[in-house]
């Protein structure tokens, strides 16, 4: 089972993504609600894929993404963004995010995305 780390500052989104992924054969090995914790959890849990919310307090998703990629250049991070954040998403791609998904999304979208990325 691919191991997933979920990073989002709202409990609702974390729960939604967790529910969708757990129903489809993924193992959620950790959750984080800000960039700093995300980095810590990445080191602890060594997931296969990370879902990263792009706007979070304390340390943005992009900063955390950078840090994680520095630590592990092979880290696969998928950005979760809202509409209208093209600029940030582009920054994230440049910083090493492997792809992104835009809210609101359907279960099959995120499942297919994570599956594809996990298999890369």
């Amino acid at each position, binding site marked *: 089972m691919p191991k997933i780390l979920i990073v989002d*500052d*709202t*409990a*609702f*989104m974390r*729960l*939604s993504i967790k*529910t969708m992924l757990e129903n489809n054969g993924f193992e959620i090995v950790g959750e984080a*609600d*800000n*960039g*700093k914790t995300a980095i810590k959890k990445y080191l602890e849990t060594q997931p296969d894929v990370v879902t990263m919310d792009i*706007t*979070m*307090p*304390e*340390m943005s998703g*992009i*900063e955390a993404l*950078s*840090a994680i990629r*520095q630590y592990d250049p092979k880290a696969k991070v998928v950005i979760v*963004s*809202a*509409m*209208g*954040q*093209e*600029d*940030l*998403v*582009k*920054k994230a*791609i*440049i*910083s*090493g995010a*492997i*792809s*992104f*998904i*835009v*809210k*609101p*999304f*359907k279960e099959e*979208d995120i499942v297919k*995305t994570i599956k*594809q*990325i996990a298999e*890369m």
Partner: protein
Amino acid sequence: MSNQYSNEPMLEMYIFETSQLLEQLEQAIIASEKSSSYSQEAINEIFRFMHTIKGSSAMMLFNEISALAHAIEDLFYFLREQKPKTVDYEILSDLVLEGVDFIKVEIEKIKNGDEVNGEAALLIDKIKEFLSLLKTENACVAELKRPEPTKNQQYYIAVEKKSGQLSKSIYKATVFFKEGCEMENIRAYTIIHNLVEFTQELFYIPENISENDESIIWIRENGFQILFKTDKSYEEMHEFFMKTIFLKELILEQLENDDEFEKFRVPKKIIIENSEVKMPKVSAQLSKDNVVKETTTTSNQSMISVNVEKLDKLMDLVGEMVIAEAMVTQNPEIEHLELENFQKAARQLHKITGELQDMVMAIRMVPLSTTFLKMHRIMRDMCKKLGKEVQLEVIGEETEVDKNIIEHISDPLMHLIRNSIDHGIEENEERLEKGKEKAGTVTLEAKNAGSDVLVIIKDDGKGLNKEKILQKAKENGLLEKNENEMTDKEIYALILLPGFSTKESITEFSGRGVGMDVVAKNLAVVGGTVSVESIADRGTTITLKIPLTLAIIDGMNIKVGHSRYTIPIITIKESFRPKEGECFKDPDGNEMIMVRGNCYPILRLHEHYRVHTDIQRFEEGILIMVEQDEKALCLFADELLGQQQVVVKALPNYIKNTKKIRGVAGCTLLGDGSISLILDVGGFSNSYAM
């Protein structure tokens, strides 16, 4: 409408989180209003709250809520980025609060399982109008389209490698993305970003893919076209493109020549993107603007939210465990056995059970702060509508009360606050004339008093008018006592009677004659009482007395014939066996007894409950003197069975709906499985006591 997610946990989480955000939003707005300015921090916070609500609502398919949140988010985005000088903050606050109210109503519908059918279109239009007004008034630099087009257009072209490499393959790829994947331009950008490494002469259509929304439409209709040269084989390139996320269709052609490249070969500036974000230095990094007050959703990992039903179930189980423990340790089979080790273990078990019970009780206790916080909003709305200036002072909000009880306090409290502002506090000018401060003060205080909690609502308004009250009571035939014999307290208590109202004009908010008596009734449901005090021109004080918890009480079990009853210990003053001849009858035939100079009526429980018992004479049974609300009487029973902590269970709904039974507050299960009715002393004392 959202039917897709009948997924209970997610829906509950959505409701919980959104409700929390709405509360925080309200506080932020009211606080900003008070200080007549919206700080950057507040604007940021409100922006983020709305952004979050927009996102989660969209995920749950509550599209009206999402659209409304989006409109407010846009508004605050403008405020955040442009920092306009001329803003009518009053209208702004009203608009946002209107939005908050709309969402609150929809959330209630969601909670109740009703159709979520509210329409926010009108409100959204109002917000958009306000926003465009702001824009024209503040003549901002350029029409802000989100995201800001700050960067110059850049063409991402790989640096021409050293020439001489002839064995390059030429490809043309056309990529179609899946419908609904969004931001196709950035997806296209991602492909280019990945292609650069191993390609030369990379051209693509549309060219301007990172900022332009039109490119999205183009890509959707025509696909994203890329022309490039590379060492890689066809299979390798095919594999590369097939890895694209949200790929719908790929057309990959190997070209004979690079003729098609001609139209692109115009000298262009070569700029390599290198805006990778540096490794964050967390300490110095965050500017003040970005510091957002920690919301409960992000911080506080030391708290979790628990479903109240689970807590109730836990309480039930602990209650049953207490009974089961008694059935083991007090089992008649081992009564006369000398079992030292067993007794020791039993005592330990009892100790732990007791602690468990205490713990569960403590968990159910919730501070009054959230309830009190809601009052700020009420205060604000009322002050606005009535044009009065009133301050709300809150003391002791950390005082805790059983969760069940909190629900019954909220409405009465709201009503009392409204009353104070509407009828208690005078108009500003009148106050000044009287030498008072222009702004009235309403004080909301909570404190512990023994096994009760007192919630006091005090205002410094004009107080209650005794004459008017008496007159109104007379008019409505509510006077039972001679008015000259009534104490002030009794006179004020008249306003708690149903059908009473002295308001000349019944305002929108209160005084429709359903006010105070409903408050009293609501309180009575949880065993609470209301008392009123007032001083003319100085103000009115209303005190709510509420038992700390309904769930467990110290009770004295008594026996009457085959029936068992439990009397709350706090109501018992004393118990004794009367001597022959001590009891007597008054001219109406009511039985009484004198104790230390005072006369108490006697209630024969076996008669009252029509239970057969052999013990009919007072000298053979026991009298228990009980008191509630300053009224006392003596209950006659067969014998006392012993003191016990009992878990109060309510009578079944069916019975409660059939009739309100005087004198019975609930029931409990005794150690042997039998049911004991818990007596409500207040219920007796009203009919019998002096």
